[in-house]
């Protein structure tokens, strides 16, 4: 996944929506010659003065139902690339297959049919028809398909409502704000009910607040509709927020394809690394990606004495208590456990505090800050069966944001630090009941 070229075995697979193979797009007088030059190893700058290579040797597959983001700076060839996917530009060399149909060499009529039924598009500057109402704009694709007027207006009205423009259907685009205009653009694309959606810098012309809102709305819609979306952007944060997978482009070449976390944590080269430097890591990284193994844990069956021993060894003031199958039951603090030991109680469950912070593994770090502030304990990361997967101490959270490699060199701090003097604990643990319980704890933790 990390290599520039993806290793793909089958093209006919049903789960692949768009398949691009060795795609070149060169503008200029002698594009074919330029492709031959590039194929034999010439770089983009070595081409003749009249040839511009916009896309060089791009190969990738977009899976059905995923959001595939193509990211790069202006001039990286991303807008050219997306226009070859619906035949607005013809590839100079290589092939593009949409739902199994090779569109790189088909007659115009067939290409129009593919555009009507398989691929629709949302544009950077909205590209709405200014002389048509919102509703007529949204119905355009259906009109081209030849759907009867009453039916297409009804279907368009539904979509207009879905994108949140109820009450605006009879306005003209110039009466709408930018965000609303792009909702019309989205409605126009969705109304055709094609399963592939091309979005060319669709939110780049919007101001940041509206952009954020549109991104969130797109994800909501996507969860509902399950389209295959190919999204072009120059904004890495947007790419990271939206993309299931991201292709990073530079100077016409795809330099890395991978999940947002792949690209953030394991950039393919210096260029990508430099690019991801400024990304809002808190929104991309998930709890699962930065968590550390939980060490201050005791099984419920271990009893107060061995729990205290564990905390003593780790210099921790609290520990997570696990039930059968590593399910997280709660937290015990050293003070409570010590009281139990003093009064010779054996049931740890009576002092378990269940009000501790826990999050699923796919929670974004940005959502953890508040919990980290409120809770003195590391945040527990659990799966859907409440099994403890790991913990995120505050230090880890900070280290992840600062791009300190937490996973390779663990930071040796356990929170919260115990406040009970060592001597008192040692005295407590020196009593005869210790040995058997401690042995069972060690076994569980290993």
């Amino acid at each position, binding site marked *: 996944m990390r290599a520039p070229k993806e290793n793909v075995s089958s093209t006919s697979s049903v789960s692949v929506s768009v398949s691009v193979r060795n795609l070149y797009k060169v503008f200029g007088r002698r594009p074919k010659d330029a492709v031959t030059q590039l194929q034999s190893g010439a770089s983009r700058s070595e081409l003749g003065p009249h040839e511009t290579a916009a896309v060089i040797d791009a190969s990738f597959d977009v899976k059905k139902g995923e959001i595939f983001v193509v990211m790069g700076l202006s001039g990286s060839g991303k807008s050219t690339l997306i226009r070859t996917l619906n035949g607005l530009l013809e590839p100079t060399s290589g092939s593009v297959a949409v739902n199994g149909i090779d569109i790189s060499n088909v007659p115009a009529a067939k290409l129009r049919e593919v555009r009507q039924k398989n691929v629709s598009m949302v*544009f950077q500057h909205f590209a709405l028809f200014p002389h048509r109402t919102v509703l007529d704009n949204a119905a355009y694709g259906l009109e081209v398909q030849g759907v009867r007027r009453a039916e297409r207006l009804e279907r368009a009205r539904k979509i207009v409502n879905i994108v949140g423009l109820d009450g605006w259907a009879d306005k003209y685009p110039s009466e709408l704000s930018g965000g609303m205009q792009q909702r019309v653009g989205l409605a126009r694309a969705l109304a055709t009910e094609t399963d592939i959606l091309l979005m060319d810098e669709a939110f780049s012309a919007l101001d940041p607040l509206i952009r954020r809102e549109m991104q969130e709305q797109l994800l909501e819609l996507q969860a509902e509709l399950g389209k295959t979306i190919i999204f072009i952007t120059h904004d890495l944060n947007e790419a990271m927020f939206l993309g299931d997978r991201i292709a990073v482009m530079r100077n016409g070449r795809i330099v890395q394809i991978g999940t947002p976390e792949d690209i953030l944590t394991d950039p393919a080269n210096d260029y990508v690394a430099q690019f991801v430097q400024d990304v809002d890591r808190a929104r991309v990284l998930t709890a699962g990606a930065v968590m550390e193994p939980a060490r201050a844990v005791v099984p419920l069956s271990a009893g107060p004495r061995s729990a205290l021993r564990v905390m003593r060894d780790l210099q921790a003031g609290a520990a997570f208590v696990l039930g059968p199958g590593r399910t997280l039951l709660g937290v015990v603090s050293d003070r409570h456990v010590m009281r139990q030991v003093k009064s010779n109680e054996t049931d740890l469950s009576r002092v378990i505090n269940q009000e501790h912070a826990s999050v699923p593994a796919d929670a974004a770090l940005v*959502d953890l800050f508040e919990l980290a502030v409120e809770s003195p304990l590391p945040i527990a990361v659990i799966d859907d069966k409440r099994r403890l997967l790991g913990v995120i101490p505050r230090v880890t959270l900070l280290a992840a944001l600062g791009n300190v490699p937490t996973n390779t060199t663990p930071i040796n701090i356990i929170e919260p630090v115990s406040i009970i003097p060592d001597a008192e604990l040692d005295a407590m643990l020196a009593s005869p009941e210790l040995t058997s319980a401690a042995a069972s704890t060690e076994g569980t933790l290993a």
Partner: protein
Amino acid sequence: MITDFRLPLGDLVSDGIDVLTDSLRPLFDLIRLVLVSLYEAVEFVLLSPPFWAIIIIAAALAYFVKGWKFAAGTIVGLFVIVGVNQWENSMASLALVLVASAIAIAISVPLGIVAARSNRASATIRPILDFLQTMPAFVYLVPALILFRVGVVPGIVATIVFAMAPGVRFTELGIRGVDKEVVEAGHAFGSSPWRILRQIQLPLAMPTIMAGINQVIMLSLSMVVIAGLVGGGGLGSDVVQALSRIDVALGFEAGLSVVIIAIYLDRLTAALSGKRRTMWTPWRTKATITEAAPSPAPAAATADARVGASV
């Protein structure tokens, strides 16, 4: 030595016209017949009703496209024409202008479309237009006279040739000026080129095309007087007469009638193109947008909800 040599360009063109006259006589006779009948039909429509009926119709048209001020001005202007006894001449000239500009538009708009769609066509058409537009208008009269004989037809033909250029230019400009992304959107949804032309390019280029049509009509009017030289009749013949007799009074009256008709047609067509434009750029947008723009609150709310859900 050098003075002996002469490019025989003029002779070549003259010979060419001779060949045309000899070989295509029936064709030119047919064209002449068609143009004469068109002209006479329009003239009949304009002259058979009483003059006040035409004035009422013109004023109603003026009121409809622009407003009561324009309508009032129309009534005053046309009554002035009646007052100086130039009504019949004016209607004859108007008929010539209408026929000539209708034909010029019918030729120039499609040519403009072709020029807009192909750079090669544009490169071919442009120098021809330059030629047609800058060649002194009188020069067209000579071959037109030979091909179509004296009368209204050489006037109409010379007018068409002279007035066509802005129609082509404005149409090309208008279509090329349509937002590329909007045209691309048409393609992206699978429209045929014909549908894109009809539903996107022509409607969006219409204000510019209308400006071109306005120019075509104005140029046609300016040719009316020249058409008088070849027996075109109407106001032109009176102007020519005034010129040969040094008759200032007649010349002024006929000239003023041309001006009145010109102003009427200009404001009428300008108002038509302006009207189309306002249809999709209403003036009230700014205020409504700021009020209606969705507040950022929902975004924050969803983010909170996500945090809540994940705990």
